[in-house]
């Protein structure tokens, strides 16, 4: 089974803190994704990466950055957390195959609260 793990299930931080959310997958997938999920808004893509050291902006990258130094690990960074970044953060990975978008496998999510 594909396993995607996220470093924390729940996290509470203060405004202005630097926050790191870590995601690790064990299936040698090339693609990794960070989403945030808010009630009524569904999943919104923040950033994705299709290879080590490669990154692409998603729909809502403002206030976030990412790092992918190793194939299995994709980190989401909030440089200076703000209260409007309180949300559920979901990481996903997918294999890179010819033909187009492939099945994404999700981690359990990190519920981040910024006070």
């Amino acid at each position, binding site marked *: 089974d594909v396993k995607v793990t996220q470093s924390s299930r729940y996290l509470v931080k203060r405004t202005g803190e630097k926050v790191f959310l870590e995601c690790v997958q064990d299936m040698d997938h090339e*693609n990794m994704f960070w989403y945030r999920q808010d009630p009524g808004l569904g999943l919104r893509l923040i950033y994705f990466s299709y290879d080590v050291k490669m990154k692409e902006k998603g729909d809502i990258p403002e206030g976030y950055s990412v790092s992918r130094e190793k194939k299995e690990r994709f980190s989401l960074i909030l440089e200076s957390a703000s209260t409007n970044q309180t949300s559920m953060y979901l990481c996903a990975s997918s294999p890179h195959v010819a*033909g*187009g*978008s*492939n099945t*994404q496998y999700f981690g359990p999510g990190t519920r981040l609260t910024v006070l």
Partner: protein
Amino acid sequence: AQSVTQPDIHITVSEGASLELRCNYSYGATPYLFWYVQSPGQGLQLLLKYFSGDTLVQGIKGFEAEFKRSQSSFNLRKPSVHWSDAAEYFCAAGETGAGSYQLTFGKGTKLSVIP
């Protein structure tokens, strides 16, 4: 622009009743199609996917979905709902073709089950 629409925000059914969750997509060409389920506080789990071939797709937990090109729809069905099916359901679509990695998600349909 590409989009996925789930017209029903919340559906309530009685245990044992049949279920149909609607999903419509707007893409230039027929996309890859997915249904995911999310239990409270959890990540998303893949129920089923359609890439090509038979338009009736079987998934896990007794779910099935039917692709109808003429209606741009990919509706999820289950003949008899169990209380454990209460969750949020997301339809997603992805482009076909090399270099496509992303999925577009609908905003979700929350399913409540009355005992």
